[in-house]
């Protein structure tokens, strides 16, 4: 288990928010908006398509897995339709920080960043 954890950590030597998404043309704009929200707040992130076999994961499941993989403990999940969810590694899997439809993607990016920065969420 130790070695497994270490291998995983090699990938994440830099502290980043992890964005996990289902590769789908329908959510491409969302991804850009999430990234914009994170960038405007000055928090580094990396976006990763989901691995094979995870094609049925919901935005929340993706967000939670992303949070666990994040050095900063914060993850964003994006489903095929562009619904987003923000999660934190220290929260129970079924209690995400927030979630929303595609139209809220930019705000989700801001708030994922603010979770890291520790300032109050953007409404």
């Amino acid at each position: 288990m130790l070695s497994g954890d270490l291998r995983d950590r090699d990938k994440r030597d830099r502290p980043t928010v992890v964005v996990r998404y289902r590769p789908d043309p329908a959510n491409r704009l969302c991804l850009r908006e999430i990234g914009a929200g994170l960038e405007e707040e000055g928090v580094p992130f990396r976006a990763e398509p989901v691995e094979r076999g995870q094609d049925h994961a919901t935005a929340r499941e993706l967000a939670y897995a992303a949070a666990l993989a994040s050095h900063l403990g914060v993850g964003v999940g994006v489903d095929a339709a562009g619904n987003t969810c923000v999660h934190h590694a220290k929260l129970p899997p079924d209690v995400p920080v927030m979630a929303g439809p595609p139209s809220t993607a930019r705000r989700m990016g801001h708030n994922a960043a603010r979770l890291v920065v520790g300032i109050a969420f953007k409404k």
Partner: protein
Amino acid sequence: MTLVVGVDIGNSTTEACAAEIDEDGRIGYLAGALARTSGVKGTTENVAGVVEAVRDALAAAGRDPAGLHAILINEATPVISGLAMETITETIITESTMIGHNPDTPGGAGLGVGTTVGLADLPGCAPGSPVICVVGAGVDYERAAEGINAATARGVPVTGAIVHGDDANLIANRLCRAIPVVDEVTLVDKVPLGMPAAVEVAEPGRTIRTLSNSYGIATVFQLDPEQTRMIAAVARALVGNRSAVVVRTPTGDITDRRIPAGGLTLVGETARRVVEVDAGAEEIMATLRGVRPLADAAGEPGTHVGGMLARVRGTMSELTATPVGEVRIKDVLAVDTFVPQRVTGGLAGEFALENAVALAAMVRTSRGPMERLAARLRVALGVPVLIGGVEADMAVLGALTTPGAGLPVAILDLGGGSTDAAVAADEARVESVHLAGAGDLVTSLIDSELGLENPGLAEEIKKFPLAKAESFFHIRMEDGTARFFDEPLPPDAFARVLVLTDTGMHPIPARHTMEKIRQVRRAAKERVFVVNALRALEQVAPRGNIREIGFVVVLGGSALDFEIPDMIAQAVAEFGIVSGTGNVRGTEGPRNAVATGLVAHYAANAGLRGELVDRALG
């Protein structure tokens, strides 16, 4: 054995003290109880609250109400307070000379100076002369960055940008040449184009230095001394900001206007003085000291202060069923405060902290309703109701049951509407005073200074310590200690300042830091209670000399506060007298003094009992 209950009807709280008195007048205190005062103090509406407090006290004492001999209520001079607040300054921007708001995430850092040009017009700009790019609503950050980069490549020095969206860093990160970018300028369309402008953004954690300095603006726009004089107010308004924009329009201006609030006429017993409300609290209080004791106060009709006092007077008249003409204002407390207000003419929802004066006024009404109340109470409870001694005398008697308190004693009763004080060299000679301003004024200052518009939350902020949720599993308290939780906090608490009430943690929906809220809270308490405590002691002390008082006993609901007693202790420490929060009967803390005093008075005057009962029944 005679079973009696002393009852004190306060503006906010009705307190009861149950006791048995033996043949020799020795008192066996049984229990205390309290209830919310129903209706306005001294009116027949109080019956419900009194009945509740009496019932609870007897229940706590384990005594049958049927055995009750009498209810003792005090000969209160109903003292009722009113509050009003008036803004006395106003910031107005004519044309758009200044954008002084503080977006969370401006981009870049430094100072840029040039002529304002819309993004769409950049391609038409001639190389060589510096410009400030104005990016309107709905423009994507990539397009904005491309447009600016293209202009730079053509030799047009773009030195700064003013942006509608929350895009400053997105744009700044995509530029070939770093420039300061101010974003979230909601009314960006109103920024005049073709005008000289300057954009400044400070490094994180710092404040701007050029545009908040008159000579900085003068340097940027090459102003002469006369022109510099005109823009001094702009610089002043920008002090303390992290980012700012100044556009030089031919007639643009910003003014710091004083709103004529009107004159307050203070009528003393021998003198009569008028003071302008916008002169501030210090001036008003100095004038008051000059005419004291106050017989009445009036505001100039047609002015803000006129309206203010008319409102207070009207409310009092209504509550006490006294004609408006007979309502007399017997004390005034003025407090300087500030109110966050939206700047007229601002382009980005700028707020300015405007100065304001809060006035608490204290009105003394006639004794009339007390007798009617006693009659109603007798009907409701079926026992004799005696109107005992004067409230202040009773409070002194009750306070003296505090272990360690002795004569000469002064009491300070910190209530909701008024701060009352009494001094007794011995138990017979009591001097007392009722001052406007107490817990409710503190609550209302907290509410307005933090811009909460939520008095319930302000009351909680007053009464309970703060904390900040630093993660989902821990909060940090005001004193720096951390507390851990097994269950995650709700997301709406995250990174927010919380008030730790006895019913749970409540997030404060405002952008203030914990330290700021703490400061506002403590300053409000200082300005009301420390000021009033000293004012009150000074007025009741023998020869006005506080040092001649031996013991100060602090009483009342606000003495339960977690920091007010410390503040008062510190303020009177220099007089070298013993001062502390009362502990009535060694058990009740600062509560129940008057109710206890009524029982003590009754026991001591056993011989008069028959007469008093007769009078109450008569």
